[in-house]
């Protein structure tokens, strides 16, 4: 059956992750002059990605969602760290490519597009890396119908789905002729992704709690 304690840890982790986004909105005005979400969006993108990644790493170190039974050597750890960074970078590039294929401008505002890709990666890939480690097969397993084996896997499914759907929905206001500052690429998409991410963070514990009868995980 469900592990109540695990769920509590998960909720705490999610609240911290959500706080990371809040911090990225609340703190920079004290650090930078004339910072605003819309006006200096690129700065915010960097700050938000950095916050989210930091919190994810902290969570990995404190909560240990995926304790490894094997003892690992130092070189193994370095190797793992190296692969994690590589995966993250590749995922940024991949997201960039996908976004361009979806219609983002190719040459102009490359910086914006790439930072948006970094934001998306930090919402999705960095969580995957922290929870599952740089293990591609595990990723593939988690993102299938019966693949989740812990509350963390479920939360991963939900937040990733919500972030990407949020980013997708964020593209819809762009063609409208309202002339609002947030319709500029990639603001609406990054805001959509952020909303989706936060919504996913909030939703996941409730959803898991709601379906606790249905979800049974084999003990590891």
């Amino acid at each position, binding site marked *: 059956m469900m592990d109540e304690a695990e769920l509590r840890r998960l909720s705490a982790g999610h609240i911290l992750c959500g706080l990371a986004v809040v911090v990225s909105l609340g703190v920079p005005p004290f650090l930078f002059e004339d910072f605003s979400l819309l006006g200096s969006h690129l700065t915010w993108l960097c700050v938000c990605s950095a916050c989210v990644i930091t919190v994810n790493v902290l969570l990995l170190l404190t909560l240990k969602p995926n304790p490894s039974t094997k003892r690992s050597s130092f070189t193994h750890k370095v190797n793992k760290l190296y692969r994690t960074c590589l995966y993250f970078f590749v995922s940024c590039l991949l997201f960039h490519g996908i976004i361009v294929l979806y*219609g983002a401008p190719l040459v102009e505002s490359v910086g914006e597009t790439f930072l948006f890709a970094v934001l998306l990666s930090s919402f999705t890939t960095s969580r995957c890396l922290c929870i599952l480690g740089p293990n591609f097969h*595990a990723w*593939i397993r988690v993102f299938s*119908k*019966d*693949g989740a084996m812990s509350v963390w896997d479920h939360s991963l499914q939900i937040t990733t789905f919500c972030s990407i759907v949020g980013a997708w929905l964020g593209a819809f206001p762009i063609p409208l*002729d309202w*002339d609002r500052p947030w319709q500029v690429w990639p603001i609406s998409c990054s805001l959509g992704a952020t909303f989706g991410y936060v919504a996913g963070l909030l939703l996941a514990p409730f959803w898991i709690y709601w379906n606790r009868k249905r979800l049974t995980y084999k003990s590891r």
Partner: protein
Amino acid sequence: MRRAPLLLYLTWLSVSFYSGIWLFTSGFLLMRIELNNQSRCSEPPSPAPHRQAAPCWFPQRFHKAVIVIIDALKYDFAKYNPANNNPKPYENKLGIIHQLTTSQPQHARLYPFRADPPTTTMQRIKGFTTGSLPTFVDVGSNFASYAIQEDNLIHQMIQNGKRVVFMGDDTWDGLFPKKFYKSFFFPSFNVKDLHTVDDGILQHLYPTVDGGDWDVVIAHFLGVDHCGHKHGPDHAETAKKLTQMNQVISTLIDHLDDQTLLVVAGDHGMTDTGDHGGDSEKEVTAALFLYSKAPLFADQLQTDPPAVPQVNLVPSLSLLLGIPIPYSNLGAIIDDLFGFPRDKLTAQLSKTSAYHLNAQQDYFSTGNVLLIYPYKVARYLDSYSRAAGDLPADKLRVLADRFSSLTAEYEQLMAHQEQQSEEELEAHLQMIIQGLRSYLDQAREVCMESWARFHPLHMIMGCIILLTSCFLCYIIAEAGSASTLPYKYLLGYPLLFSISATAMLGLAIWMSVVELDLVTVCAAATIVYQMSFYFNFRTRKGSEMSWRKRPIYLILSGPWVVLLVRCCSLFSDSYVVAEANVAPFLLTSLLTVTVVKLHWDSKLMLPTFNPLGNESLKPSLTPTYRKDGSRLLGLLAALGLCVRLSGLFHNCREETPDCQPSSFLSPLSSVRDPDIKNFSYLCCIVCLGFIVFFIRKWLQHYGNLNSSSPLVLYVRWGFPLIVLGIACYWALSSGTEDSLAKLRELTHLALVVSPRAIYALAALGLLLILWNPITIFMKSRASDEDNTVTTYHGAPGSAAELQHVIPQIYRKMQRTLKSRLQHGGVGEDGKKGTAVEAYGLGSVYSAAMVITISILTLVLIMLHSERLTPAFLLLLLEAFIILHIHGHVANLYSDGVELFSVPWYAVLAWSLAASQHFYSTGHQPVFPAIHWNSAFVGFQDGHTNNIIPALMVAANTFSASILFSAGSCLLLLWPFLCEAPTARRKKGKKESREGDTEDHDMPMMEMRLREDPDRFSVALLQLGTKYLFIQGVQLLSCVCAAMILRRHLMVWKVFAPKFLFEGLGFVVSSLFLLLGIALVLRVDCAVSNWFKRLIVQQNR
């Protein structure tokens, strides 16, 4: 297999859509035909009594005029009410008008100015320059620009030596290109910008007026209208703008002399929200203010002046300025202006003659002129009613009678002028004036009836018919897996009912019991058909067919969300403008979701993997994946690339001023640099070669290129020939200027001959396909049981594979066919008789389809600009990728059973790709973006009739729809083709183990379809209805958008053209869908015959 009912059924569905479109169009799209006749000074419509005094129709009163158009100047804005102590922002702002009308009542007057719908600026400008009732589509001789072709005020002014200076809204530049003596245009597009146009005008207005180098100054201010759109009338900005206009008018008056007439007019009004376009009272009541320093009006007006129809300005202004009234004018004159000079009788006389002049002008236009004035040239609407015939004949006759009696009376009066006393004469004249005035009013009324009014009933009924047709398609598409549809109940009886209803209606019309036009009859027949269909369907639902009910949450599944987004997007003008980006976005999303869903459903893993039983983090137990996973990802990436690259060939519309149309759209001959020219030419030829090469490769892969039937020979030799012809044609057409004078005639000849030769070749190819679509190569050999065991381990796709695998297909076919045909003892005979190898049997349907598509593509490429060839290559590649993804997904989800039903996502992706490629072949749903050049490919000297060029332009415009809908049957066929490799792989494994092959391991490919003819027929029907449903739903949302948003600012620029293109596109798609299905049926027929012949041969 029931072929005829299937086709008939789809035809009927399409027809019911057509009748819905037609009905809606008749209510929404008001059409009028433009005539090019022009009035001339030397040809007055009648020997006017003032002829001797006037150089041109009527004595000139003013030499100069300043016409100030204030866009959206409502009567409420101009009217000044001194008693109003608490005015709203838009009230009592134009004090100068009030001051002048009260202090100089003979010099100034303010009228309500009734605009005719549609109250959009462009239509209104047309209205008060031509004096006609412009509709949305004024069918003129030239679609490509908005320029006014009809006779108009500006034209007449220029013809008669007036120097016309224009400043303001650049819409006029489009309507009167290069007509003005001097002009200062300012962009009107940005509705949010309140000041650019007005400030620009003010810079030039006073200097121009003072400069004296002009006869007529026209200034079109846009600020008030933009204010209305941005803030609404009830806003402080409007007050500011109106105050500015007040200032403008009063300053302007100081700059005028007594020979000048000042006209201040609003082109339309606005609603309380600041919109316009429709026909509500607030939108049509604009203001008209006339002023001159010389006395203008004979008498003072006691009450508020009556409303002046907008068309009346044209004849009044023309006669005051001494120029002819434009030919297509429908307006009367403004009475008060012709009451001067004071002498009452003369006044009456001049008024009458002005009236008569005008009426006659109008009359000649309206009626059957030959009855009364046989010597006159038939004028405006006589020509019009001949050209179009949409004015009701009986009403025209009444008008003609009325006018003839009035004319007779007037002439009699003129003849006996001296014998009568002044009072009598005046009374008579008064009567005649009354008569003429009411005549003109009626004439206008008749024209308005047919040109300027929406018919809400028609529109709503059209929508309802479209809706029910869509629903009908949906029912059939989801009608379960019924192996046979009860055509008798769903097609036969309803058809019978509707035909009999039509016959009865026809009888009633013939016996003149009721009066109905053809549209209504057609719609009635459709409604009867659909009602009886639904009735039959309801009563037999339980017994013979079940409608697969879906749970409601499936609305949230991928394809439905995408379809919903797509339909909603058609309701927003910005989305319609941005559709070239929206459709690819949705297409990519849809296919990505499909593939991700496939992974989510664990279909990409091999079935041995059970995630619940494994500690999957251990690398040793990682699941194994099918190869399809990476292949599908590769296909998705390729699709994204294709979609993105095809965006290079986009065209622009005027709503997006920053957009630069792709340079590939211009013909190659316009390229100056010879190196670039040669390079582009080479690239195009290479692309063309690639297309042909890929198609041949594909056919070869499936073994359809081995036989020696005429069709295969055509593919082998005809395709390269066509490519050669196209290359020749392009080389000649892009380099004609450089050719020597001697060769010019030769090149000209070649320019005509080579495209025609290609048309002929293409037609030959299509005929060959119809005649014998079979591309099977047969090889008989002695029966040798041991030899039939194929142990094949070569590389896939090699020639050896073809030699081995495809022959196997036949054997199973042979056996099943024999058992079905029940030949005595055939089962035994077959084994002993000769075995037959048939190459390409498994892809015989698709081969015919692919050949047809490629012929069509080659012809369509020729109709486009040379450098769009890569776009077509991308189109074919994208279609191929979609088909492949669909084939893989279908085979992964099912094992043969479900293949017969094409899933919704595939059909939706297909239709999205069609709309995407409409844009990526350089089109936009606006009239100026149509590629008119395509009408002259192979017809350098123009055409003698209108049908061929219309067809060619339509083929060019809807080329993506044509290719995708003709190819939609491939959606059904492709999964069967993709079945082959997987089945083979399994077989390979088995063989290596057992060393023996069973018959049922053979890839059956498309022969599965033949095995189950009833389900094949139902599958085709369901595919057709699904495609029609998706197209129909998109059409329906366009129609609803046009209907609901008919007051929208953008309706005539965005929604109405979009509806027109979508409607025409639907007609083209459904036609080619039918043709595609008919082709598949033809192939099926031929394959049946082929088998029969084979059996007969075997039995001999």
